């Protein structure tokens, strides 16, 4: 089977001796929506850097759609589009020229490049800014410009390194809608993000990297199944009576006694909590997870 990305025993040691990657193995299937998660300095950006030739690897092999990045770098690079974390376009160029020039670097003729630039700039709501100098754009617009630029050669794999960092909620949602559509059309998406709820909602498969090693690599569903305990917060319409208790559960009651924090261990039923409250005629107004489920697992694995 040919994978979109296949990384084998990848190692990277920087000049100062720091070992950023300690021999990672990773496979990303075609059409996947894949999350690469990890704390700062774990090796995510180094891995992405190696994939897109911005970091020289120390050893190991990397292939993109079966093309080894050492032996057939031109072919491998054509499959890849990258949206980096930091803005990296010429800030004095116009928006249109940033995108069309990038197409030229992939050998795409000007006529085709202009057609595609119009298509992607319109899809990303940047067409009315096409003649503006890119430095004049807002932060969100700059991110969308980098997405348009990464798509200009219509890559099979799109890598997004923290694409929603510092982006407002509305723009983040529209950006994800756009990326989801791309994935539905067959583009493999690889994403790094600090917003774990994004990874939980969007991604099918996930790898967690810590201190240069992959500590987990599975589907999001399978990972969430391993969660043994969740903490729920319940908002109540009336204060709880003093000395109220819920046998078998670890419960924290707020000062005004209208909010409950309950730890539910795997195998326990939430219905028991509702029934106990119903018995004393208290209604639950709203209920939510204390923290993102993936976040709980992430912290556990990283500390692990």
């Amino acid at each position, binding site marked *: 089977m040919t994978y979109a990305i296949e990384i084998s025993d990848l190692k990277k040691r920087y000049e100062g001796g720091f070992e950023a990657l300690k021999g990672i193995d990773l496979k990303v299937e075609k059409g996947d929506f894949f999350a690469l998660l990890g704390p700062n300095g774990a090796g995510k950006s180094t891995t992405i850097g190696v994939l897109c*030739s*911005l970091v020289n690897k120390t050893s190991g092999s990397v292939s993109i759609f079966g093309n080894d990045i050492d032996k057939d770098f031109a072919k491998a690079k054509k499959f890849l589009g990258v949206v*980096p974390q930091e803005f*990296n*376009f010429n800030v*004095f160029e116009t928006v249109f020229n940033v995108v069309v020039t990038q197409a*030229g670097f*992939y050998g795409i003729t000007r006529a085709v490049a202009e057609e595609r630039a119009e298509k992607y700039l319109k899809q990303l709501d940047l067409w009315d800014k096409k003649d503006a100098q890119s430095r004049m754009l807002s932060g969100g617009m700059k991110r969308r410009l980098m997405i348009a*630029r990464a798509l200009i050669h219509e890559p099979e794999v799109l890598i997004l390194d923290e694409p929603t960092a510092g982006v407002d909620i509305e723009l983040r949602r529209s950006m994800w809608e756009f990326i989801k559509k791309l994935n539905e059309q067959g583009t493999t998406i690889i994403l790094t993000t600090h917003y774990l709820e994004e990874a939980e909602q969007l991604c099918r498969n996930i790898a967690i990297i810590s201190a240069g090693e992959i500590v987990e690599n599975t589907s999001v569903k399978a990972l969430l199944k391993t969660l043994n305990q969740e903490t729920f917060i319940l908002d109540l319409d009336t204060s709880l009576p003093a000395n109220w208790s819920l046998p078998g559960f670890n419960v924290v009651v707020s000062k005004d006694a209208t909010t409950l924090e309950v730890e539910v261990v795997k195998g326990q039923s939430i219905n028991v909590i509702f029934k106990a409250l119903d018995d004393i005629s208290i209604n639950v107004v709203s209920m939510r997870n204390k923290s993102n489920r993936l976040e709980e697992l992430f912290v556990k694995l990283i500390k692990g």
Partner: protein
Amino acid sequence: MKNSEIWVAFYTIIVREIRRFTRIWPQTLLPPAITMSLYFAIFGNLIGDRIGEMGGFSYMQYIVPGLIMMSVITNSYSNVSSSFFSAKFQHSVQELLVSPTPNWVILLGYTLGGVARGLFVGLIVTILSLFFTHLALENLFLTILVVSLTAVMFSLGGFVNAIYARSFDDVSIVPTFILTPLTYLGGVFYSIDLLPDFWQSVSMLNPVLYMVNAFRYGILGVSDINVYWALVIVSVFIVVLFGFGLRLLNQGKGIRS
């Protein structure tokens, strides 16, 4: 990449480089025009009349080829060094590094961008010089060959400088402390026949002397050195600098972690 795609990538780099230096023409094209006009007026007209003839020509005619060459050298070098370093500085060089464009195309593209500016400025200075004197053209082919090869050589030099540079200061150190002295002592303003034997021998170690004299030979038909040596020296420098620049790019020196 197919040959046609390589050509598109190459053409894209050159067009982008030309667009860059024409967009910022007050920084790139205007200053050499003003500086050289002042040289022509002061050294050529005012002082030159008192100096008299040199090499059988008026002093103004004698220094014009040198000043044209000085502009070409400075501008081709600084175009590539500043453009590539800026691309490094604002990380836009990554646009090229993530693309399938081969390294030799990147090097050639930037070099020819520098050549374009060097020759464009050389043309402006030549036109300006015609307001002060008239120029004969002894050997058109040799003139174009020498000025083109010189522009290639200094563009490559600028590229190597930009690869090693870590700050904007590093980009200006070589032009200020190496290029300018070499040019001023490279026979732009005088014939080395005027120097004592020892300093004549020292001057022969200066590669700029060969280029300036070969160019002057193409225009005026006089030279302090053998023109063929000049062509050999420039060609050797080009081959060495191209090989070195390509090696640095392949290693990712200063641009890849």
